[in-house]
């Protein structure tokens, strides 16, 4: 494809080969220098691939690496901590009376990986870049402007009150990036993609990257929190391993110390194994099945409710994640705002389902369920849906496809769209009201994630009111969201399958692992870890 490099080079094959060999030499993570014998290297097997090295555009699995190389202004704390938010690159923050201006005091004496100093100008540049072109830039929606007050203070002005502490601690689009790098990227969109360096303030820097194969991180010597307080790892080698079986083999063979996805069947065995500890933590990942509400007979609420009654929720949890999950309520996982623990959920009742179908006068129909072929959880439970809905006389076709294509099809020609879209979802930050409930179910002109194509005015106004209240009156917002969630469950534009647990298997040679639910894709924070005594 032409046009992706700034100037098409007219190079001969031989030079291209030489260039590629050079890339091999540079990109190969086999460095000649690292010969120290007592090098503390943490080895990890992880499924996370890199879609981009650009911290502003990042919105996917690469957050596992980004979250260790870049830092936000504020960190959201793991469940059960005393404070909800702790300082990141901001030492303190406050709001004005009217809630429309937030002032952040920034930490002094911090430098980026490339040597540039971190200051108010850098913070402003980072936030502006995120607002303008961030992959998750929408989180900064309420922001009108960012002002530099002095070298280490910024003011963020809002158009409506919003929970800026939550926004500034997001898992995407909230990292501070070296202004020099941002400038270079503005001139050259491919600047970050070489994967040769990182430009954050985080504890680890990118040393090298072999696409689809591995990422090598090394300590950032000038990290603001220092390295003397504990025995940290000097390097982290992450082998990109999408297959769970390969991860298990690597773990048991001693090739890696941590694995983020082992086959669910093996968890028990690993747990019993004295060499490993399996950490199971509630996570923000949830599976939902979006029903095409624009197409008969799914436009009839009773039919959708019948489907909700026919779904074998506990079997799904047993089969796909071996019990390491819980049934989901209204697409909002438990553990973040808004709290869904009191929201209703359906249970399987075949008789009631059949009765509803009869009431709606629907005997049976054809239904196509699309899901991501590369997702083993969906692949495992999709046949259960086919089986269960079959009892209602519904003829289900399962269509696995690469997620891109599944996605593409759902936006395309309405006649060609699916009947149910199986979706793995996670929020961009810890506000599932502004994210899950809005992105997935609020009506919009062009469906972005509202792949049930649902249009319900009551729901829309409830959501809008709740969002507006979030910055000023949390409790009132919670009440509105609760109402919206009940409506969602009752109208059933989606089937709410399960919330999954994050399962991290750690060898007992590594200590300090703690999962932070607020950063779903930054599953492992390397700075916390140290070799066992």
């Amino acid at each position, binding site marked *: 494809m032409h046009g992706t490099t700034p100037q098409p080079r007219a190079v001969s094959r031989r030079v291209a080969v030489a260039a590629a060999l050079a890339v091999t030499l540079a990109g190969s993570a086999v460095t000649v220098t690292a010969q120290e014998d007592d090098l503390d290297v943490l080895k990890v097997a992880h499924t996370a691939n890199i879609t981009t090295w650009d911290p502003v555009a990042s919105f996917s699995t690469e957050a596992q690496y980004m979250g260790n190389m870049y830092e936000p202004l504020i960190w959201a704390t793991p469940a059960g901590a005393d404070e909800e938010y702790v300082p990141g690159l901001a030492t303190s923050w406050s709001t004005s009376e009217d809630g429309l201006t937030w002032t952040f005091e920034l930490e002094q004496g911090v430098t980026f990986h490339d040597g540039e100093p971190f200051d108010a100008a850098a913070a402003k540049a980072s936030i502006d870049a995120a607002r303008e072109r961030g992959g998750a830039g929408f989180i900064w929606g309420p922001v009108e402007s960012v002002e530099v007050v002095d070298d280490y203070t910024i003011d963020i002005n809002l158009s409506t009150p919003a929970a800026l502490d939550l926004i500034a601690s997001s898992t995407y689009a909230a990292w501070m990036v070296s202004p020099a790098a941002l400038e270079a990227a503005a001139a050259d969109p491919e600047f970050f993609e070489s994967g040769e360096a990182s430009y954050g303030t985080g504890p680890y820097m990118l040393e090298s990257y072999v696409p689809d194969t591995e990422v090598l991180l090394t300590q950032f010597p000038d990290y603001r929190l220092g390295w003397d307080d504990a025995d940290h790892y000097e390097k982290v080698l992450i082998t990109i391993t999408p297959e*769970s*079986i390969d991860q298990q083999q690597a773990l048991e063979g001693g090739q890696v110390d941590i694995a983020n996805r082992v*086959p669910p*069947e093996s968890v028990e*065995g690993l747990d019993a194994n004295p060499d490993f500890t399996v950490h199971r933590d509630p996570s923000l990942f949830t599976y939902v099945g979006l029903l095409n509400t624009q197409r008969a007979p799914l436009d009839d609420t009773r039919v959708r409710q019948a489907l909700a009654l026919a779904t074998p929720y506990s079997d799904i949890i047993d089969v796909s994640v071996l019990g390491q999950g819980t049934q989901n309520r209204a697409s909002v996982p438990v553990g973040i705002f808004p709290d869904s623990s009191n929201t209703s959920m359906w249970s399987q009742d075949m008789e009631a389902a059949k009765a509803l179908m009869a009431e709606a006068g629907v005997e049976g129909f054809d239904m196509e369920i699309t899901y991501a072929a590369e997702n083993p959880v969906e692949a495992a439970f*999709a*046949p259960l849906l086919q*089986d269960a809905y079959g009892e209602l006389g519904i003829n289900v076709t*399962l269509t696995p496809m690469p997620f891109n*294509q599944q996605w593409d099809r759902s936006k395309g020609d309405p006649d060609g769209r699916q009947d149910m879209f199986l979706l793995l979802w996670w929020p961009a930050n810890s506000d599932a009201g502004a994210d899950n409930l809005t992105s997935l179910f609020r009506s919009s002109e062009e469906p972005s994630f509202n792949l049930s194509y649902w249009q319900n005015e009551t729901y829309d106004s409830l959501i809008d009111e709740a969002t507006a209240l979030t910055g000023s009156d949390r409790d009132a917002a919670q009440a509105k969201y609760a109402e919206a969630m009940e409506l969602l469950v009752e109208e059933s534009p989606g089937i709410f399958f399960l919330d999954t647990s994050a399962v991290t298997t750690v060898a007992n040679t590594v200590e300090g692992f703690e999962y932070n639910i607020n950063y779903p894709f930054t599953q492992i924070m390397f700075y916390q870890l140290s070799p066992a005594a």
Partner: protein
Amino acid sequence: MAATYNQLPSVISERPGFARRAARAIAHDWLALFGLVIIAVVVVAALIGPLLAPSPGDGAGVINVDERMLPPSLAYPFGTDWLGRDMLTRVILGARIALQVSLIVVGLAILIGVPLGAIAGYRRGWLDGLIMRITDLFLAFPPLLLAMAIVAALGPGLQNATLALVVSWWPWYARLARGLAVSLREWPFVDASRAMGIRESSIILRHIVPNSLGPIVVQATIDIGTVILAAGGLAFIGLGARPPAPDWGLMVAEGRQYILEQWWLSTFPGLAIFFTVLAFNLVGDLLLRLLDPRQED
């Protein structure tokens, strides 16, 4: 591709007692007998599988979550999978998919390739050149690579995989048929027929085709096995039949993540592929020896 038979064919119609020689060869060669028995089993499974299998359900096996992940036992000779489906049932049902795909692919490849090749080889001239250039083009791709690219372009699924395999396979038969036609047209009686002014189509039908049958049948038999391997490979990667179809290659892939503990999930479908392909190779081998005296022991 398995070995291609490219030596001069014997003229079957002139060798006496083909059936007798065949019977004697089989009796002497237990391997070939073994192959025939397996083929018979597979064909029976393909034809009346749903009647034989313990719990076929809708065609993919009955789901029974309470009985999931059970190792092979008397009740479940091949064990059960993660949804509790009986593996023996699924392997039996898979025979139909395997045979269907391979017979369609080989059949269509012959229907397309043989006439083209025969005409090219008999007529020679510019037609020959053209057809051969086209087959060269298709044969320029390493086997399966073209099929993978086609399925990647069209989207995964059994139909697309079958189509892709037909496109990949027909050139071999065109080549084979052409080679046979080229050598056959020099034979004395063919030459004589032409000299006598007998119509070309008649010559082709009466002499060329029957004498080409032998090598083509041998090749086809072996190819049924090879196509099953290829289709299995495509399914293993995810380009073939889609879940929950009981396709053997797909089952091996699905079972792979459980390979360390629940070994039976990948093993039995894999063995099914192996023995079926083995059987066709053995029988093909037998036919090869029957048709060419030089290969006989």
